[in-house]
């Protein structure tokens, strides 16, 4: 274990002024630079996040009153179907894996680029057309069978929209698989000399687990979608009961991907949180190996729990029991992570900047989704709340309170590295407070709505749920407003923000030991491993590191 405090490392300035060639035009080109591709992913997926958010706002506007009065029932079903599809397949999955995976992995591993740069660019450029295609479906009648697209409804509803949905998902799935091949190869083969698997930053472990899940599960979804498309256009009967097909087989295939998809969406964010908390707590990550291996455990268990989405689908009882127990067991590795994060911040010196606020918000909100997750794993209880607003609340605490809070934390944390400039702290905090409040007002009441008897995917509901629904809708508007401080802050800071210097957070992982933004091949000269990724406080206290760029460490000489 080589250890060296940052002050002892070679001063910066050993690298030339980098990145003259990266202009705004680069981001619209078929660049093979993983950093450009990472930012392309991030900006593109964020645009889709805004679109998905607009769709959600329309959904909640319809639900502000019990009657159907804002859009027609048909359009409403299209809105929530496309909302979910966009948020999952065009925002969280590609943002967590594609954006941060691409940007960070080579930097953290000391590599010059990803293993297959061209493939990487291909994977990214599949996303915009797939997303545009999905949006165009509104012209012919959007897919309206829910993002789960269960047959027979999906076979008989809006066939054009449904086919577009399938095509779009097949493209996005292929992109995701190509990305995963790249991540796995990069992590296993491109680490700098001396960087063993057990010295990797935890984000790399998380990406390893997520990529393995993508490779194992996405092809099954592709298979299900292709068979479904045959049922729609060719009149086959794989899933169509009128021809002797079995709709439940589709559900098995769909959830074989889509349960792991939850971990594909949350594992990279787990990794990011494990990076962000130690830096802003000035303390090593607590229980490195436990966190690293629990990612693998979650990934493995995530593959064998899919039928917990099908407890009311006529699944045989003994199978329901198996899936219940397997699902509950996931709470153990997940709990290990949460407790390790808490132990990491305990006794540290917390810098409560925007990145840290979102990271702490992540832990706080994700735990609620985790608790309700264990609850819905219990078959007898799930039979009551399945397909209700309790589930809507649960998934949003996991995917919004979890993944999206984590993605925001990641953006605030790595923005200085990506752009070379700092984001505005004040507006970052405003963004956090609005998001935190809006999120909880929107989704907390949904737990009660679901328990009391409000089912999901409905445009109209019993007037007795009107008050709580109005609260949820108000929360949604706060959430919608909360994105504006972020957008303006990000655009303004990218353009005019104060210069960040190489390592504004005094972080120890390798990506901070090169310039901000890093040069084309990431490091000038061979990067050398001088310190563990989390060796904060190793020589007692390490005082007096100024925040000036001149004094920031750069072992990369």
């Amino acid at each position: 274990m080589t250890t060296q405090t940052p002050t002892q490392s070679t001063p910066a300035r050993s690298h030339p002024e980098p990145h003259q060639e990266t202009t705004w035009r680069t981001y619209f080109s078929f660049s093979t630079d993983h950093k450009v591709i990472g930012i392309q992913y991030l900006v593109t997926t964020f645009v889709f996040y805004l679109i998905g958010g607009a769709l959600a706002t329309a959904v909640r506007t319809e639900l502000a009153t019990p009657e159907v009065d804002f859009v027609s029932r048909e359009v409403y079903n299209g809105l929530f179907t496309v909302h979910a599809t966009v948020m999952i397949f065009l925002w969280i999955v590609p943002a967590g894996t594609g954006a941060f995976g691409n940007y960070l992995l080579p930097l953290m591993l000391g590599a010059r680029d990803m293993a297959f740069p061209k493939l990487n660019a291909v994977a990214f450029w599949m996303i915009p057309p797939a997303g545009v295609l999905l949006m165009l479906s509104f012209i012919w009648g959007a897919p309206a069978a829910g993002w789960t697209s269960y047959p027979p409804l999906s076979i008989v509803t809006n066939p054009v929209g449904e086919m577009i949905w399938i095509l779009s998902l097949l493209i996005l799935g292929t992109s995701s698989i190509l990305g995963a091949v790249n991540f796995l190869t990069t992590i296993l083969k491109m680490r700098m000399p001396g960087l063993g698997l057990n010295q990797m930053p935890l984000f790399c472990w998380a990406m390893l687990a997520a990529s393995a899940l993508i490779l194992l599960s996405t092809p099954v979804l592709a298979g299900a979608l292709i068979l479904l498309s045959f049922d729609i256009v060719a009149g086959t009967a794989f899933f169509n009961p009128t021809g002797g097909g079995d709709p439940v087989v589709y559900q098995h295939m769909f959830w074989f991907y889509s349960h792991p998809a939850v971990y594909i969406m949350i594992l990279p964010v787990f990794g990011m949180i494990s990076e962000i908390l130690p830096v802003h707590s000035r303390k090593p990550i607590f229980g490195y190996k436990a966190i690293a291996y629990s990612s693998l455990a979650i990934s493995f268990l995530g593959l064998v729990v899919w039928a917990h989405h099908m407890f009311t689908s006529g699944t045989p009882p003994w199978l329901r029991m198996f899936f219940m127990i397997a699902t509950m067991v996931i709470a153990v590795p997940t709990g290990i992570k949460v407790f390790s994060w808490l132990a990491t911040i305990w006794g540290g010196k917390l810098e409560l900047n925007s990145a840290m606020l979102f990271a702490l918000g992540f832990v706080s909100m994700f735990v609620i989704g985790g608790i309700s997750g264990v609850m819905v794993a219990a078959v007898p209880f799930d039979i009551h709340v399945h397909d209700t607003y309790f589930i809507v609340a649960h998934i949003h605490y996991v995917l919004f309170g979890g993944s999206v809070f984590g993605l925001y934390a990641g953006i605030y944390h790595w923005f200085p590295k990506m752009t070379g400039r700092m984001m505005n702290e004040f507006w970052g905090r405003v963004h956090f407070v609005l998001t935190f409040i809006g999120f909880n007002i929107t989704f907390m009441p949904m737990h009660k709505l679901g328990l009391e008897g409000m089912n999901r995917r409905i445009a109209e509901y019993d007037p007795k749920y009107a008050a709580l629904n109005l609260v949820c809708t108000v929360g949604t508007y706060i959430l919608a407003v909360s994105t504006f401080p972020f957008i303006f802050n990000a655009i303004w800071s990218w353009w005019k923000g104060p210069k960040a210097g190489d390592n504004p957070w005094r972080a120890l992982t390798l990506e901070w030991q090169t310039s901000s933004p890093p040069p084309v091949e990431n490091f000038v000269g061979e990067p050398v491993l001088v310190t563990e990724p989390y060796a904060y406080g190793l020589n007692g206290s390490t005082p007096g590191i100024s925040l000036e760029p001149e004094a920031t460490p750069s072992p990369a000489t």
Partner: protein
Amino acid sequence: MLAGIALTLVSLWYGQNHGLMPLEGSEESLPIDSLFNLMMTIGTGLFLLVQGVIVVAVLRFRRRQGDLADGPYIEGNIPLEILWTAIPAVIVMILAVYSFEVYRQIGGLGAMDHAMAHAQPQPQMARLAGAAIAAPLAEASPTSLADAPSPEPVLSDATYQLPGDGPYEIQALGLQYAWIFTYPDTGVVTGELHVPVGREVLLKINAQDVLHAFWVPEYRLKQDAIPGRPTEIRFTPRTAGEYPVICAELCGPYHGAMKTRVIAHSPQEFAAWMQEQQVASASGLEQAIATADPAQRSVEQILAPHIESLGISPEVLQQLHPPMVHAHAS
């Protein structure tokens, strides 16, 4: 320590007094709610623990202005890590065993054996109330509604009595966008579900067109209706009253409107109600339905082969629901 005791007490109290669940209308809802209360207790404790640690850490360990020193170099603590692996593991095991037990109590584990055993022919609804609706239904249904022979109807009996042994069987058919309930012992067909309190009901569920799900929140029970794949659910109504029956599986634009009621009667009331239905059907309800032209037409449209795209106009659909319910449930 004090915080720990307070946390435990709050969790114990909230686990019993959360007030989140609706009325407990079935025997099954009792063990399910106890399970939920236990999970709420544990969940509240965990919630308070985690949020408490975060809040205290933020207050106590905030970096002071100008303090650029690092925190202590603590990489881990094996006993602590074993502890927080073991405790959740134990909790999870307890919950799994308890859930298993609750599931056994509500009859979930026996469901499939019963499905096999229920092969004996049941009296069917042909020639009785609602025949005008039931006939096209039976033709179009690929599944169990039509396959049993229809023996002599039990109309000759002066007073109706619940069949003696086993659960009382009712058939449910989900279709866009209504439920049709058939009582095989009499052949009565209704749009609302009538059940006797205190008697185990076996609901055999089919779907006509797409997936639906039968859900009564007050009963805490839900079962998908799957075309071509009969399913079933058992429950014992506990309190007399009317509760909503909700379709919980997306079935098309009018999914949110696919609602009816379950009406739980005392056994005597149930018998009286059933008697009334039989009399009504004998004295020409059949004819009334046959001439209820708009209703009948829309039902037929609903039942049209569903491979063709379902271009049913909303007007027709809205007509469907009220006449059917009125015709059979009055």
